[in-house]
């Protein structure tokens, strides 16, 4: 069984934006359309991309959009899992729990459920079925994802029961980030130090394989926040090799003004750089 901590320390994560279609409209997300489109993944494109990545330890984050809406998600996951160097992570608003429940029973898939839209004065607004329980501590690699929105900080004290249920090793707490259109006005964290942004630029928290345009995008955050277009690259063996050895992406003008959260301990720890640069 895979362990999340090992994956975090030894793998580089790449977002696979399988489709931009989503069935929800989270107020802090600009990375979706309600239009139903591209719901069947082009397997030839997936296979060629995975082939270019075959020798690298990659965490393939399946998202978009909502991966639970993809019609051939099982096939996509089977293809990714066929290479032991690749780990599959699925991020869903709980549509996957409804449509592909078998994914939650497979401990070799990291399933991250973004179930909570936000915390309000009168309720916690959920994205999926209100009868779904939050994930308890488990060995199946099923995780709750909670985004620390400004409302979370403001109202979390009103929900001690929910907070107690979420207080386990299978809950991931994510800093609020710049995807909100008016993020600049409600910024919680200070801009990261320049050196952290430079390191992030060399290999962002997540570059993107965009299945709609079939290209490689430098940064998922700038991809999503489409006020500024992130640099795009053709998917070739040469570009993949350069990307995975920190040689493809540069510190761009949008990195200079980026206000995304970066871990105070650095974008990646030095152990991770050592393990990748030693290859």
């Amino acid at each position: 069984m895979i362990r999340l901590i090992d994956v975090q320390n030894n793998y580089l994560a790449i977002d696979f934006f399988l489709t931009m279609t989503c069935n929800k409209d989270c107020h802090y997300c600009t990375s979706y359309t309600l239009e139903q489109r591209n719901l069947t993944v082009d397997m030839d494109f997936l296979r060629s991309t995975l082939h270019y990545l075959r020798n690298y330890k990659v965490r393939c984050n399946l998202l978009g959009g909502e991966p639970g809406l993809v019609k051939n998600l099982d096939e996509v996951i089977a293809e990714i899992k066929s290479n032991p160097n690749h780990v599959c992570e699925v991020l869903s608003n709980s549509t996957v729990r409804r449509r592909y429940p078998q994914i939650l029973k497979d401990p070799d898939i990291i399933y991250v459920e973004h179930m909570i839209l936000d915390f309000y004065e009168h309720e916690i607004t959920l994205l999926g079925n209100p009868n779904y329980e939050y994930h308890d501590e488990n060995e199946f690699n099923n995780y709750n994802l909670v985004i620390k929105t400004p409302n979370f900080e403001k109202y979390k004290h009103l929900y001690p029961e929910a907070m107690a249920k979420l207080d386990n090793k299978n809950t991931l707490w994510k800093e609020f980030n710049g995807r909100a259109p008016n993020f600049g006005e409600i910024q919680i964290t200070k801009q990261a130090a320049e050196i952290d942004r430079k390191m992030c630029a060399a290999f962002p928290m997540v570059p993107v394989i965009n299945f709609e345009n079939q290209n490689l995008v430098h940064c998922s955050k700038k991809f999503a926040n489409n006020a500024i277009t992130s640099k795009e690259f053709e998917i070739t063996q040469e570009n993949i090799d350069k990307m995975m050895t920190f040689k493809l992406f540069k510190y761009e003008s949008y990195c200079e003004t980026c206000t995304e959260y970066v871990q105070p301990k650095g974008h990646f720890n030095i152990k991770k750089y050592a393990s990748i640069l030693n290859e």
Partner: protein
Amino acid sequence: MIDVINDKLVLIDDMGNMAPIEDEAIKELYVSMKELLGDINIIEEVKEVEPIYSYIVEKIYTMPDYIKWNEVPFKDKPKEKLAIAFNKFIHDKIN
């Protein structure tokens, strides 16, 4: 010219006069890099390496604790590149 004498970074002028480099942050960086790489030679010729190596050196300079999270030792090739990046960083800072 910059050199290491008695395990300390020193600046040597054209007349051969030596003055220890007193900048605490640079002294600390030298200690950290030595811990990471072993003995380091300071060379006059400043070479270029991929930016990631320079970033790691700069990160250690701004946050000396950064090396504490390294349970995986660097192999010879990345060590060599880090040493080059360290050399360049020191020269840029001092000159």
